[in-house]
């Protein structure tokens, strides 16, 4: 017994090192395996406030670009609004049509955005008090950004599409051939669409949008265009490089989307939440 205690005292530095290292590695493995690890999360009060302060200074340097982006979006929406013919309106005289919302949309602001790591996360201002919760989709005016994985009262953590753990259901816009959107960890402008069947008519420059199979994102949210593709002859599947519409390195104003009927859909599917 004495021997053991003496040994422990003699090697106490090594022991402390091993214990702390085990904790650190444990946290690392956990972050790589379960992407919604809650132990070390930036969605807490202190980090939120510090990063929020930085961001509120930072945003002045970026006002012009962000204004351009918002103006562009306004333009698109205006065009769509003015070009809606009255015939379409009269076809839906039922007032319930307006109140029966499918998606609830909540604006939010990015306060920390990483895109140079292998697994990237964003922190946004807006949390449970704005009815933002886990598993909601996040988009910008130009395309998808990620999925909320953790929400505190005022801040939420979003897993970026630029994360090797994410896989998002996407399709070719014209033909509805489905595939899975993944990231290879390098270029923040490029993603890969894998498992698209051989029968799909893949052409350079075609648009990729979200598929309707997920209950997180609505169907037909634009993602990007095909910039390159390869056909795997053995498996009969395409691997497609997608150039994103979104500039993931410059995000400020975003929207959190909630599918109002999702709970109901899960009940029908009788399925565990993903």
């Amino acid at each position: 017994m004495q021997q053991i205690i003496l040994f422990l005292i003699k090697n106490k530095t090594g022991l402390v090192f091993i214990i702390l290292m085990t904790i650190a590695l444990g946290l690392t493995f956990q972050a790589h395996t379960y992407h919604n690890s809650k132990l070390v999360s930036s969605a807490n009060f202190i980090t939120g406030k510090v990063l929020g302060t930085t961001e509120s200074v930072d945003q002045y340097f970026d006002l012009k670009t962000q204004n351009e982006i918002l103006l562009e979006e306004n333009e698109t929406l205006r065009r769509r609004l003015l070009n809606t013919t009255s015939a379409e309106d009269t076809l839906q005289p039922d007032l319930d049509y307006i109140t029966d919302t499918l998606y609830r949309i909540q604006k939010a602001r990015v306060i920390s955005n990483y895109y140079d790591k292998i697994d990237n996360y964003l922190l946004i201002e807006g949390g449970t008090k704005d009815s933002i919760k886990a598993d909601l989709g996040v988009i910008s005016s130009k395309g998808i950004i990620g999925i909320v994985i953790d929400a505190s009262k005022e801040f939420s953590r979003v897993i970026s599409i630029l994360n090797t753990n994410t896989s998002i259901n996407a399709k070719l816009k014209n033909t509805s051939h489905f595939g899975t959107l993944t990231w290879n960890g390098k270029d923040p402008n490029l993603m890969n669409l894998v498992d698209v069947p051989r029968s799909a008519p893949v052409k350079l420059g075609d648009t990729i949008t979200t598929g309707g199979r997920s209950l997180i994102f609505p169907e037909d949210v634009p993602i990007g265009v095909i910039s390159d593709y390869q056909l795997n002859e053995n498996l009969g599947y395409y691997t497609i490089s997608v150039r994103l519409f979104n500039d993931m390195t410059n995000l400020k104003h975003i929207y959190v989307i909630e599918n109002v009927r999702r709970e109901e859909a899960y009940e029908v599917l009788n399925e565990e939440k993903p």
Partner: protein
Amino acid sequence: MKTYFINTIRFILLILVQVMILNHFEVFGYVNPYIYPLLIILLPFNVNSIQKLVLAFLLGICIDVFEDSGGIHAAASLVIAYLRPLFLRNAFGLSYDYQTLKFYHAPFRSRFIYVSLMIIVHHSVLFALEIFSVNHLLYLLEKVVYSSVFSILLIMITLNLIRKNRK
């Protein structure tokens, strides 16, 4: 007591500088300099080894919380804190063994070697854990080399600035 005070101030200051300023630097798209290992580099040479390890762990975990990166910074900081005596002996030689070492009295070359060893090991552990895959070995090497160059430069400049203020 004074050492505790100085190191607490440094601790907070370095974390704030790291997360509020340096994490917004994206040189060439993926090079991100790290200044916070400076705290471990500048710890007194006769510091209690357990306190040193706990401090390194806390420092790393704070950066991890801000970056949502699991425990990679904690692990990297721990490794350099643990290996620090080895690097000190390598860089400063006998004067470290005889406990007569004054950091700023040592020649520039020794200081540079010491800082470089610390930063290169720190960045290697950090990016290896971050990338966590053997498929990206070349990318890992690129990231370690480029980031190390910037971090070493930054830390050497900061070291000289601190010294000027004290004179």
